[in-house]
């Protein structure tokens, strides 16, 4: 188990603390930069805040934001992941909540990144370095723009999907299929357009892993002999 190794605990803690401190400092801010995009996302958060505070789930159209005229931004921005994040941060002031909603997935994603790096053969120190490099892709707010929630989820979904595809190419692995589905569903529940691009990207990646797949051969054998035991398929990933 990862958590049982002392070295892992050290580097995993360093990943969480460094990422948490660097990105979390914005949660203490009393002011924020804003323009079109920030107003748009603050409005989405407000809509969910109001619904949750009344013990309800938000509606398909906007009743409390965007001038309360029934706009349908959820058509492009499904709010599954945002509902969870808003629920976790409801007790914060609006600005702190806005930043906390970005920081939580970055923190969880950093841990996932660390674990994936370890599983594909990196040492604990290399996994720590990789996790920090991925964190450095996240842009905190500048003027109107920043790394959006959909980009944050897409980043970590690519890493999880990459690992799931490696696993699936080595053996028939239900857990890997579930991991892939979780990764994609996080993006589906955040931004439709990012999902389309992610799926196109994963198709290109899958073509390679299918070509390299060990079980592709096994599956052909299965069709021929009906006797292959997938559990005995050897799992080796050479970088």
């Amino acid at each position, binding site marked *: 188990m990862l958590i049982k190794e002392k070295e892992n605990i050290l580097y995993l803690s360093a990943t969480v603390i460094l990422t948490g401190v660097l*990105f979390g400092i914005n949660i203490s801010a009393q*002011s924020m930069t804003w323009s079109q995009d920030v107003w748009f996302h603050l409005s989405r958060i407000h809509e969910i805040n109001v619904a949750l505070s009344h013990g*309800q789930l938000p509606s398909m159209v906007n009743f409390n934001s965007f001038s309360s005229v029934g706009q349908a*931004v959820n058509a492009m921005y499904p709010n599954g992941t945002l509902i969870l994040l808003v629920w976790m941060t409801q007790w914060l002031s609006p600005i702190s909540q806005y930043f906390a909603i970005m920081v939580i997935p970055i923190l969880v994603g950093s841990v996932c990144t660390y674990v994936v790096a370890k599983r594909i053969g990196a040492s604990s120190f290399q996994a720590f370095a990789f996790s920090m490099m991925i964190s*450095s892709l996240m842009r905190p707010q500048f*003027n109107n723009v920043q790394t959006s929630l959909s980009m944050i989820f897409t980043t970590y979904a*690519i*890493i999880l999907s990459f690992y799931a595809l490696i696993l699936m190419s080595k053996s028939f692995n239900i857990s890997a299929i579930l991991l892939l589905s979780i990764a994609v569903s996080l993006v589906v529940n955040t931004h439709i357009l990012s999902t389309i691009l992610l799926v196109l990207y994963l198709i290109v990646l899958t073509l390679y892993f299918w070509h390299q797949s060990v079980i592709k051969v096994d599956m052909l054998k299965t069709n021929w002999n009906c006797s292959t035991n997938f559990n005995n398929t050897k799992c080796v990933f050479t970088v």
Partner: protein
Amino acid sequence: MMGNKLTQPFNFKLINGTLNLDNLFSSAINWQYSTSFSLFSLMALFIICIKWHELTTTIRYLSIISGGLILLMTALVPWGALQNSLFSIIQFPTRFMVFTNVTLLIVLLLIIIKYGNNASNWLMIFLSILIIGNRIVNNWQYRQESLVDLSPKIYHRGVFDLMKSSRISNSIIRRDDFFELRKYPEYLPQQSLVVKSNRNSLLKPDSQQMRTFNHEALNQGTLIRGKKLASTANSVTYSFDKVKSGELGVPFFAFTNLNYQIQVNNKISNYKKNDRGTLNVHIKNSGEQVIKVSLIQPLVVKLLWVIGLIGWSVTFIVLLLPKHKLKLKSNK
């Protein structure tokens, strides 16, 4: 979205969202860019170039994908010709940047596993902290010293330069009218446009949509202004003074596949979807009218929520079960 015939974000000039070599590389160290090439991606590209013959097939394939993605973000693709096609929904080709960066960083990890040493790991960690820290400190200082607070005059006029930022505080966000400040023209019924074949100019609603945003209702050929009284998660209540009996166009956007409930002075009333993308109700008696609009949540949406929640929960539980190990035996 298309089934409901919504206005879509078609109006960003694709060609303006491409990269040339200059901003591709300079964005890696410029803290003001929102979408930038990572410094680590640059390193990965450099190593790929000098060690190509020693790289494994996996790294080479990922490198080719990255190269393809970089090409997609440049003007070498005829983005101008795709402006009026379905592709324009991506708004800016630099959307591929996140895929490029992550792919190249995975390549860099695989290279580090093969060739890296402690010094290279320390360098990566040091640079990461420097990049994240600098951006946060620079932005913090910029916000405090270079930006001005949103002025009350601009706030009340509601006229903003879309690309110009200012500074806001918690008290501004908590104001009741904060979420009415801007009128957002995307994801509205296409019928709400005056000329149906038109597209909204960049992030600005057209005149007919603007009337709905301003809670203006058409009553027997006259425009009357209403005001919002209250809203819940699934309803909004408006009041209108001096309404004449007859048809009233309620300023609430109505989508093709959704059904609503309207109450006029606490009584459920029949409604029709009109050709302006809003709702019409019949008013029996002249005078002040309190109109409440609610959405009838489709059964399929409720079912999807339940199936989705069960699916996520079951998947997480299965993944956490000890016998389901997501492990890969390494030959390292």
